[in-house]
């Protein structure tokens, strides 16, 4: 598997709104904790160390 960087979400506006909604009403610390849990859940779902490595690289090289 390679990391998918082309558009892959059917309803990007809905998913983005759900992400924001999950953070609403939380303090900055709570938001950070939520994101940490989310990252771990998604990493497990992806499950492929190569894809995760490429995702980490993309995240790191993006200013």
């Amino acid at each position, binding site marked *: 598997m390679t990391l998918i960087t082309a558009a892959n979400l059917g309803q990007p506006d809905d998913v983005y709104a759900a992400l924001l909604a999950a953070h609403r009403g939380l303090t900055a610390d709570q938001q*950070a*904790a939520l994101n*940490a*849990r989310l*990252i*771990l*859940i998604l990493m*497990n779902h992806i499950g492929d160390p190569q894809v995760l490595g490429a995702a980490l690289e993309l995240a790191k090289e993006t200013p």
Partner: protein
Amino acid sequence: MAFDYSPYPYVPPPGLTAPEPRHKVAIIGAGPIGLALAVELANHGVASVVLDDNNVVSVGSRAICWSKRSLEILDRLGVGETCLAKGVTWKVGRTFHRDKEVFNFDLLPEDGHKMPAFINLQQYYVEEFLVARAQALGVDLRWKNKVTDVVQGADHARLTVQTPDGPYHLDADWVIACDGARSPVRTMMGLEFDGELFEERFLIADIEMQADFPSERWFWFEPGFHNGQSALLHKQPDNIYRIDLQLGWNTDPEVEKQPERIIPRIEKVVGHANFKLDWTSIYTFQCRRLKKFVHDRVIFVGDSAHVVSPFGARGGNGGLQDVDALGWRLAAVVMQKAKPALLAAYDQERCFGADENLLNSSRATRFMSPSEGAERLFRDAVLALAGKAAFARPMVNSGRLSRPCAYPLTGADDPALPMSARPGMVAPDAPLAQGWLSESLRGQMVILALNCPAPQIGITALQPEVTPLLAQRYLGQAAQALYLIRPDQVVAARWISPQANQIQAANRAVWEGH
């Protein structure tokens, strides 16, 4: 009951009154590692002198968790069954977050091994058994003999040794520094550790009490009884329990050492005050090692060569694996069956083993004691998720317990044979018609020939009846196989159907250190 520390007698050494005879091997330090090496060498027919600055066994339980591999090594040394009989056998570890179990592991889920996954046994017992064994084998044990100087010569090292009756010199072809984490020999030689120090302190306490905790390892993250820090409980023989409590870096060890500070903390763990404090200590976390372990005629073994933070039981067990990798090679060099270059293989293999131990311990330390920021954020996220989602549980890291490492050997291999017995692995144990396979692989090269003839090439051959367990662990789907197994029970090479010259070449490679 508390342990009876009877001192061993100091006997004035010959070097005080006449020139000390030249020794083949001098071992500095009569801890578990130095003693184990002396016994291992004696089993190979090599005499050694052991110099220790003290005259009692370990004060305090110190290393308590002895792994299956260590028990197999101790068994070869002649004290494995004694340790097993005295120790508390366990194999299950449970990890709790607050009051809920979030992860557990079973370290030996299969039967058919002589030794269990782990026993808990105070270091002083292991030392006591090893001392008795060393004495029975005629090892020259010298108590109250403190090495104060080491000078390397061309083919030996010269030690200056201080005794209650004054100093003397001792020359040895090989000097083995088994003098622990604070190794004075390392300091005398101006050698430095490389690696990490963590800003974390733990209190360890041995308490004596009547209780019925199961024979398991229990680890808590943020338990209600210890205010957001970590705690560990282990059962030892003699109604002694080991409790480890995280203190954090902003504590004063001198204050925390006081019984009036410790006792209330322990009361909160066990829920009552009906116990006796037996021994306490405070330690900091380090994950560091020497760049190399062989320095001309001085060889570092155990904690003098590498230190890890605890919780993986990788200190004492790692040290015994050093002994395992060095003993047969050093014996061969001393007996001129191999060239000193063979010792480079000890250096390579155990630097590799130490790195694996350091990697595992530093990861566990980061989980247990995360720095502020992302480390803490993700640690807490893993713990929070572990209660809800199975995937997070294996990420909970309260220490990954010592396992023998798979050395990256280049010996012949046939990938059709089972992975768990490939070259570089310790040959898996299995029951034989009489006794155990591990008992038959001792001290010499062995050819294990399963369902095939063993060529007569001067190597001891073992041809047991192939039981289903032997077939499972050594054959897989293959009809037959031949294994070449080193004196330390590590598989050197294996084939399904080899020629005699292939086995001979693999044997030569072992003795040349390849």
